[in-house]
């Protein structure tokens, strides 16, 4: 599923990285713990997190994650946008809970990593 389709499916706002929105993602992982995210080996992964800071973006950069969805109405900062743009990562803001986002993405066919 394309990143752009994920955003429209969630009715969520793409904050930056629209150029990247054609990329396909197949798997999803939801965590506020970056140490957990860094142990994943899966490619084509979308990350759902309530942790809106630079380290979430850095973690995605190191793990080759093309898209982060910030849940629970967490707001992306200007610095995060700059880091994400440099690494071609799409950032999406979603006003509802992590659980709701997971349910919607699961219905859309996004698969768990394990």
């Amino acid at each position: 599923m394309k990143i752009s389709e994920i955003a429209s499916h969630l009715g969520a706002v793409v904050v930056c990285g629209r150029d990247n929105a054609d990329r396909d993602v197949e798997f999803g992982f939801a965590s506020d713990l970056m140490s957990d995210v860094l142990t994943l080996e899966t490619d084509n992964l979308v990350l759902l997190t309530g942790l809106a800071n630079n380290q979430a973006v850095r973690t995605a950069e190191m793990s080759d994650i093309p898209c982060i969805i910030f849940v629970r109405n967490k707001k992306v900062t200007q610095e995060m946008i700059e880091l994400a743009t440099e690494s071609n990562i799409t950032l999406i803001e979603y006003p509802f809970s992590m659980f709701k986002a997971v349910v919607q993405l699961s219905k859309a066919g996004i698969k768990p990593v394990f």
Partner: protein
Amino acid sequence: MLFDFEIQGGDFATAGNASSQIKKILKQLNVDHRDIKRIVVALYEAEVNVVAHAFGGKISAEINTTEVRIRLVDEGPGIPDIELAMQQGYSTASPEVREMGFGAGMGLPNMKKNTDEMHITSVVDEGTTVELIFFLNQTPPNH
């Protein structure tokens, strides 16, 4: 080729800057993307450890066509029991570090998993040296 970087202890806003620079260099050198991922994941964990647990440090990276050797030397409290620290789930991270999304005690085991060799030496109340060694994939691209 040799590259040097500084790490600011305690500064989570800039944590990962050195790992990001090294990732760019590895990409320019056309290193296999799977090798790049395991190198930068291990390095980033190590860089965050210096930020989270030490006062500051230096990174030196030696990159050639067959291997990458990265040494992180920090000034800090040191690790009294390295074997214990290596265990999954062992963490002394402060509440501030946990709020930044770290402190699960997963970093050192994950670094071990992603490296071909890892060497840690530490002196309590002085600091820690971590060496990460990677042998690069020799198969040509597109295979």
